[in-house]
């Protein structure tokens, strides 16, 4: 039986909960064999493959909810603080590099400090550094240096979630 190129890499990355990004060669293979891989992951593991123009990832009922929630809190806080600082948060998250010092300033001086302090992964500088490494492993960000990183297109996954909150609430109001 023949598998497409980079099959092992694709399976390993997706099974590790990584977002596979369009600039990766594995993404191109996934796109070319979307139908087969959708079937493969469903039949083998009962996972759903989601392939968008910004990322590919696997969905299962068995979710790592705590990490997902912490990522949402992290991006929500950063977006809020950037906006409060008069920055175009969406442009910054999509196109610019962040330094850990900047992140630290926003988090230390945030009006959501109680929420930050109560969150195990975000409560202090060391936790946040580790959290950034976790995001890096999941391909939500890409580290560009020891203390610098950029968000990848996988950030869209979480931005869409935020949009859905408003859409869902509006739909509820209309009902």
């Amino acid at each position, binding site marked *: 039986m023949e598998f497409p190129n980079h099959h092992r890499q694709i399976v390993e990355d997706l*099974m590790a*909960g990584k977002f596979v990004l369009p600039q990766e060669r594995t993404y191109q293979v996934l796109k070319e064999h979307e139908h087969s891989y959708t079937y493969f992951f469903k039949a083998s593991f009962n996972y759903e493959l989601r392939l968008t123009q910004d990322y590919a990832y696997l969905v299962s009922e068995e979710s790592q909810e705590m990490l*997902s*929630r912490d990522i*949402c809190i992290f991006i929500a806080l950063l977006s*809020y603080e950037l906006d409060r600082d008069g920055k*175009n948060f*969406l442009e910054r998250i999509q196109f610019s590099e962040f330094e850990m010092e900047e992140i630290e300033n926003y988090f230390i001086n945030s009006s959501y400090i109680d929420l930050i302090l109560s969150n195990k992964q975000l409560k202090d500088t060391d936790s946040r550094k580790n959290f950034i490494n976790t995001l890096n492993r999941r391909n939500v960000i890409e580290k560009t240096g020891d203390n610098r990183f950029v968000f990848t297109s996988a950030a869209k996954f979480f931005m869409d979630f935020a*949009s859905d909150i408003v859409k869902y609430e509006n739909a509820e109001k209309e009902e």
Partner: protein
Amino acid sequence: MKAEPKTILRFLLEHYDAIADLYETQSNEGVIAHETLSQIVKKHDSDIKSQLIDYKILSPVNENYEIRTVYYNLIEFILSEFKPMLPETIEKYHTSIAELFRKIRENINGDKVTLSQRLNDLAIEVRSFYEMVERNTMSLLQETRELKANVKKIDYREKIVRASRWIDEYIIPLNKILDINHSASVANKLYEISEYSNKYRLNFDDENARVQFEKLYFQLIQVNDNLLKQSKILTNELLPLIERIRTESIILTGWITFLKNPYKRKVPKLLKRKEVSIYSNDTFFNASEIFEQFKNEVDVYFEEEENDSEKWIFDKQHYTQKLKDNLPVDNFFSWCNKTLKDEYKKVEIEKFFALTQLAFDDDIEREYHEKAQFDKIKIDNLTLTVPKLIINKQHGIS
């Protein structure tokens, strides 16, 4: 009495501040109330109410006042404070321009004076149309930039509503008006007139009309170029900008809603990392992820349970000896109760049962009454019914 033009202009100059206040009132409230007019006049310390009416700057509307359109437009133009107009207002030019053009075409060989007048009117309409489009684009751009900078500190939800309304009610319809490829657009009509003028500016028997066609033709070339610019501003600058405001506001509103109660809302599903065998390429990362989780240990404090008294331990040797000393015992359970009562003021069920263990010791020989006899013993809140059990000296503990 008709005032001299210079007198009116001088009046406007002298009392500009008061007139600007009146303009602002009308812009905000639609009309100038009688009392407001008096207040403004008083504020500027100039009794100009009668002149404002005599010079036809203000006109009475019921008991209120309005700045006449010509002066209103003049001040609006000077201040560059245009409010975006609904495209329906601009769309009316389609009718007036198309109608004039139809009449020109149908009566091209008719009365030359009327033709000249119509060509003149058409040129005025085209100019007015363009000016209105330009004003609208600029005012929309200005308002959008203000919305982007959030000068008025408006709520995110209101931002979404405003951005959506501008897109749906102003920008998209205005873009349609300017879309030259759309057969019903004003721009398309102007293009048609431009081609017609081009033909007649070169080939028409009346020289005066030829000159007018030529003027119209060059005016239309200019207008079409400018409309194209406006259209580009709309599609390349304004629409993306306002779309971005809308998207940003939606996302930020979503995040703010989420942050209100971040632990109660459902979050997107992220795949749980699968356990991998030790020889996997990812072993290092998996191990480090696990270790990182322990790096940030939270201090956990356990409160020790407070013991009111030391834990009681059953001293079997002590009680066996005691039983031996008391033999014969004709009621074992009663003896247990009495012994504990002597030692502790209060008998606890735990101690009582511990002591009754002696009765089941292999070294102890028990005797029963021929007819079963029972006794009642009260411990704590319990009343126990127990058999009368005899432990004799001769057959008891050795």
